[in-house]
């Protein structure tokens, strides 16, 4: 049998046709190398689209009112505190990426625990923020859009905290495969999304619905 390697490639051409031997390839890949990364990115696109439609709906019903806001003004302090806490919680998640890429178990899981703790704090503040909304969703269309947006985003926020909690628990319990570190990376990605996606709504609700 004759064999030769195609110049500039790993492809071996023999009488049976070309072959590539992938025995020595790694068993994980981070970032855009990973299929999971793309999957989570697309899920984030889906959820961003859903929230963007709520944003548009807010502006759409806004045109139907002569006075704005049509209900009592929102209190901004709980909202701003929640938002600051959400942004702060992104720091440990971002820091966890370096040990995660090095597959260093202990620092990775410690930072996840810090992130989860800050996430729970943000959820607590969000509960206070929701309790302080001075009108019911049944009052008018503005109230309906605002409450529904809060509901949708709080589900995202809660889901990201619970997901990270489970991730951290897996890192403490095992057994661990290399792919679990890919999972940590996309958990952090989703965390960034769940927290940052609130910023346009914070501007909309706190400025347009409260401070204006």
């Amino acid at each position, binding site marked *: 049998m004759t064999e030769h390697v195609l110049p500039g490639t790993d492809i071996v051409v023999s009488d049976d046709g070309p*072959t590539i031997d992938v025995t020595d390839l*790694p*068993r994980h890949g981070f970032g855009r190398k990973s*299929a999971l990364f793309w999957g989570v990115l697309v899920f984030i696109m889906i959820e961003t689209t859903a929230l963007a439609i709520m944003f548009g709906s807010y502006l759409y019903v806004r045109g139907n009112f002569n006075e704005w806001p049509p209900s009592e003004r929102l209190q901004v302090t709980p909202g701003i505190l929640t938002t600051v806490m959400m942004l702060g919680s992104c720091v440990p998640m971002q820091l966890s990426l370096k040990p995660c890429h090095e597959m260093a*178990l202990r620092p990775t899981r410690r930072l996840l625990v810090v992130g989860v703790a800050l996430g729970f704090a943000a959820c607590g503040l969000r509960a206070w923020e929701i309790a302080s909304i001075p009108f019911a969703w049944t009052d008018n269309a503005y109230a309906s859009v605002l409450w529904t947006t809060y509901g949708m985003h709080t589900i995202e926020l809660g889901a990201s905290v619970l997901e990270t909690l489970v991730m951290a628990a897996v890192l403490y319990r095992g057994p661990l*495969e290399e792919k679990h570190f890919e999972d940590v990376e996309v958990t952090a990605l989703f965390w960034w999304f769940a927290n940052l996606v609130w910023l346009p709504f914070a501007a909309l609700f706190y400025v347009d619905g409260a401070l204006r």
Partner: protein
Amino acid sequence: MTAEASPTLPRALPTAKARRERVIERSRVLRFISETEHQAIGLRFVVTALVFFAMAGALALLMRLQLARPGLHVVGPDLYNQAFTMHGSTMMFLFAVPVMQGMGVYLVPLMIGAKSLAFPRLSAFAYWTYLFGGIFLWLSFFMNTGPDVGWFSYPPLAGPEYAAGKRADVWAQLITFTELSALAIAVNLIATIFKQRSPGMSLDRMPVFVWASLVTAFMVVFAMPAVMVASTMLALDRLVGTHFFNPAEGGDPLLWQHVFWFFGHPEVYIIFLPALGFVSEIVTTFTRRPLFGYTPVVLANVATAILAFGLWVHHMFATGIPQLGASFFTAASIVIAVPTGVQFFCWIATIWGSGPRYAAPFLYVLAFLATFIIGGLTGVMQASVPIDTQVHDTFFVVAHFHYTLIGGAVFPLLGALHYWFPKVTGRLSDERLGWISCALVFAGFHLTFFPQHILGLHGMTRRIYTYAATTGWGTLNLVSTIGAFLIGAGLLVVLINLARSYRSGMAAGNDPWQGPSLEWHYASPPPRMEERDVAIVAARYPLWTAPVGKVVGLEPREELITNVIDAEPSHKEKNPGPSLSPFFLALATSGTIIACIFTPWGLVWGAVVIALVLTLWYWPRRSEVDEHHLSEEQP
């Protein structure tokens, strides 16, 4: 790394794993519900969708019987309202989208030379969710709670004031089921196409159907959330007293129309683009020529997808929108004909002088070319506001969209079913019956729907359950009804042909049509992932040009991951294999969605159950750990 930290294989591994596999192997039911292979899931999607197609088709025949003559009482107005709503909703949400996605789930991994989908368990979850949603809708219908406010469920008719009972809620929750499923498949197809193409299959070597699946998946990602949000708003208005669509409290029924059609118009192209992919594949194979203008065809797909998001308002011309808006959306609606025109000319150029082989798949493509062009032209007519205002809500519109949806999607789908039948079953279908079915369906289709253009121009509105003899619409309606039964007969011949061939057709071999793409490289039916090689390709039409190579060094349940643009090998990932979790998650999700019709607490309690099932799904089991993939550090 320390010596203590090196990976150790859990001792219980072989026994626990073997025990679990033995239990699943022994029970046929468990094996069925834990299946995650893409061929099985894809086939289930297609077969289930065809069953729903038949059920919705039966309702169409019922409606045609009712309208055959003036003043008939085959069904009453209430059942008629449910019939057209069920027909439209089933065709759009339970047939057209799932069947196209099912074809993608089956074919895409084979065409790109992957062993499986990127997220096989997610695809199983998508199937079960879809199936449970379909069963839920039809059980509701059989219990006289079928939705009755039209497939686009406009408020205020569908709102709390005018739609008492739970019929409109059933529709709103059907949307949740089907969109969840469609989105899960879209994510899967995008990740699979981006990351699991065979080495050598750069983006510009992907088969056109794979391109169409990719573009469609992105359309699903941006379109489906709109209808999920809209149906959630509708459900909230009905269940907890929000005012999204209540003008008395600052809401707006037109908000529904905007959000719904922001989904609804791209939806047409979500159904249509995969069908164009079928056409390109079939034309290439049956003319035995590389597709003329591969790049323009791919770019036309992308352009159609982008433009599809910019013309939803043409469904709302009759609501009195500003003139500038009307002009913009008229222009956009006309422009979208251009990329489809480009594809038409490319197919004609490919076929021209090629001496094609006139087998059943190619006949259906010819039926498509002749029929869709008419639907496309009536579409361009309706882009004009004065014509649209005149024919709005008449049978002219019914005729138009059946020309585009049956002509544009069902004809290519029937061609595709005949084309890939040998790959799926390993047997050839009967050519003579293929010709007969195509002739019957084609003649029946035009007999049914062409007269409806004229009925619409004569003023026959949609969704009326009967009409007076003095209208003069009786004869054309009778012709239309005869045509509908001819279509039914044609589809029956398709069914008989495929069923007979499945039992006793001639053996097909790997590549009965001498097709150029990778799916024909594999055995028919294709082997499961453990026995499947990952191919290496060096050309756009690998089976026509150079020998197909193979990748060595993969474990049976390992997938090769390649990079997005050039498909160069990057690393290997483990395929998780069969699991019962997707089935249980779909059960929990279905319970939640149905409970939400009756109480908002359904969401709260459902979320707890879903979170628990998801955690169990994700939790690593010692019996599933693969020694090759263990992390160096263990807790």
